[in-house]
């Protein structure tokens, strides 16, 4: 019973990084297991920033970090669900 609850309450998402953020974290993609209360971009940024100095610097708010959920640009209050793809990147500079 206890172990069944644990499985339900862990959410797995895929997280992608682009441009200078990818270079800072040194990889482009990872699968992340999250506690169930981490379901907004803001919460995810806060949670990731506890990983260490590089992460804290990235998500400190000094530089703008944009996010997409399942390939849609979103603001930081957007929520994601188990299995979603979340991406972090700097403001875009195409064109």
């Amino acid at each position, binding site marked *: 019973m206890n172990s069944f609850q644990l499985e339900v309450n862990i959410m797995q998402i895929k997280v992608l990084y*682009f*441009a200078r953020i990818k270079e800072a974290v040194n990889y482009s993609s990872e699968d992340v297991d999250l506690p169930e209360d981490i379901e907004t971009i803001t919460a995810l940024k806060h949670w990731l920033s506890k990983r260490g100095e590089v992460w804290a610097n990235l998500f400190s708010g000094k530089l*703008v970090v944009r996010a997409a959920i399942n*390939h849609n640009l979103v603001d930081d209050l957007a929520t994601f669900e188990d299995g979603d793809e979340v*991406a972090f*990147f*700097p403001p*875009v500079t*195409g*064109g």
Partner: protein
Amino acid sequence: MIRVQTDDFDMAQVLDDLRKHNPKVGAIVSFVGLVRDINDSAEVTTLTLEHYPEMTQKALQAIVDQAKQRWDIIDAVVIHRVGTLLPTDQIVLVAISSAHRQAAFSACEFVMDYLKTQAPFWKKETNSQGARWVEAKASDDEAQARWTQ
């Protein structure tokens, strides 16, 4: 038609396709963005474009769909290159066909303003001092914001 590609594109071919198959077309407005040899700092030697492949097509299509809802346009072509480019190389083409010119002008400028702020491309420049990511410009946000006022 929306394409993201490493290869260069042939503007004349795109324009011919837009006009030759549809005699209702009275106007084609097109924008071509090019690699400049100088930016904020020193002389640019190369420009490398990274993107988010699964998102790019979707983001560009959403922008074109919005333009089609707002203006009476006939067709739209967006071609954006990725990879490493040199000064004077073509980066992006937006071409809009319509019966009358004002719809094509507005839609073309709209698509470019949204592409600049919404489509997941990132530019990295190299010059004699090394490589650096190009910073987003506030003027691009302001240009996009005009359309929602």
